């Protein structure tokens, strides 16, 4: 094991680490926003919206992430403008993950017993008030563990940015390994950088899940 790779190229590693983290965080926000909207579509009574939500989720969940990223990478250049690898990759990540987050949010809302909706509606609260004050505060607790898992997936999945030159950890590692000729050592350190992010998160998710189980 050659630790000098880590110290010599620490700057490049950190640049990639920053790219990975930035892309994951941006995609998390983006996918949460899209996912929340799609989840609402899926539980409304408007048939057109329900249909759109279902098609969106089913379609995205059944195609590879890389394909979604390629759509945002190659698609614009076919239409006459360009998105760089980082932007295309992050947008692709957000769109892909939003389908999974939509399902997580929907499951969380459905898990709140129906009687609560009926009770609060009959005590005079509007649908929106019921959602905001009764259903969502309870659903959010259930949604946090799957959201955490999606964030872990996002961090891991952000590695596809390297396939569109997206300035992430894997991309910079490629540069490091072509300079050092030490692929094995270079990528062991890459793995450690990913684990620094993902292991504490999955530990946190597990603790939260255990707390939920104890309550019910």
């Amino acid at each position, binding site marked *: 094991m050659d630790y000098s790779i880590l110290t010599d190229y620490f700057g490049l590693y950190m640049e990639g680490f920053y790219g990975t983290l930035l892309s994951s965080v941006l995609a998390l926000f983006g996918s949460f926003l899209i996912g929340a909207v799609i989840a609402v579509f899926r539980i409304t009574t408007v048939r057109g919206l329900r249909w759109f939500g279902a098609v969106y989720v089913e379609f995205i969940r059944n195609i*590879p992430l890389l394909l979604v990223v390629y759509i945002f990478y*190659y698609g614009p250049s076919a239409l006459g403008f360009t998105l760089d690898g980082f932007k295309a990759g992050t947008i692709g990540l957000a769109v892909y993950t939003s389908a999974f987050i939509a399902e997580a949010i929907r499951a969380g809302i459905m898990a709140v017993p129906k009687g609560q909706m009926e009770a609060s509606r009959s005590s005079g609260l509007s649908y929106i008030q019921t959602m905001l004050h009764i259903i969502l505060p309870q659903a959010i607790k259930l949604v946090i563990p799957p959201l955490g898992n999606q964030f872990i997936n996002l961090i891991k999945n952000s590695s596809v940015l390297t396939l569109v030159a997206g300035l992430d950890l894997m991309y910079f590692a490629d540069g490091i390994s072509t300079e050092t000729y030490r692929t094995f050592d270079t990528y062991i350190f890459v*793995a450690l950088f990913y684990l620094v992010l993902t292991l504490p998160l999955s530990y946190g998710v597990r603790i939260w899940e255990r707390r939920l189980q104890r309550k019910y």
Partner: protein
Amino acid sequence: MDFIGAYSADNLKFLLDGLYITLIVAFVSIILSFIIGCIIGVIRYSEVPVLSPVMFYLVEVIRNLPLLLIIFFIRFALPEVGIKLGLITAAIAALTIFEAAMIAEIVRGGLMSIDKGQIEAARSSGLSNAQTLWHIVLPQGLRRMVPPLVSQFISLLKDTSLAVVISLPELMHNANIVIGHSYSYAIPTLALVALIYFTVNYLLSLLSRRLEQRTV
């Protein structure tokens, strides 16, 4: 957008060749990762001293790394320590290792979900630990595992696209080459590839629904 050029006979044949590799690699990896995942899951469940904790850490580390990194590592870093694998073997090995870790958790979860009373009843009616696991816990657990297992298999099929990083000539890789000929092929090609992935995965999920109805 040049649909006619993109869907020329040569291009279509080339994409189908890619699909063939995708399906072969996915099929072999599904079988192998299911077998290995079941073994690891049972070991984790049975709380064997030393072995179970070792498996726990192994599964944790693998699950928290990007699959892209694992594929790349097995193909390009392992040769430095004397382990040389061919293109398809490397892809199958990487997918199997990663998905086996995922499946191990599904199997363990499924086994844990079986009511403790059943195990106590089986044990007190004279069955050994192994007999209880084989005749009581596993058959019931496997049934509950069908939905998460199938969605994991769908993930695996989608994840074969990440083997682009080692230039495995699967569907995504070949699509990339077709797009390389002309950007006007990008949208038609990606649309067709999306449709292919969607169809295969959707059939898989329909199959899972049938399986569920039959077994439950």
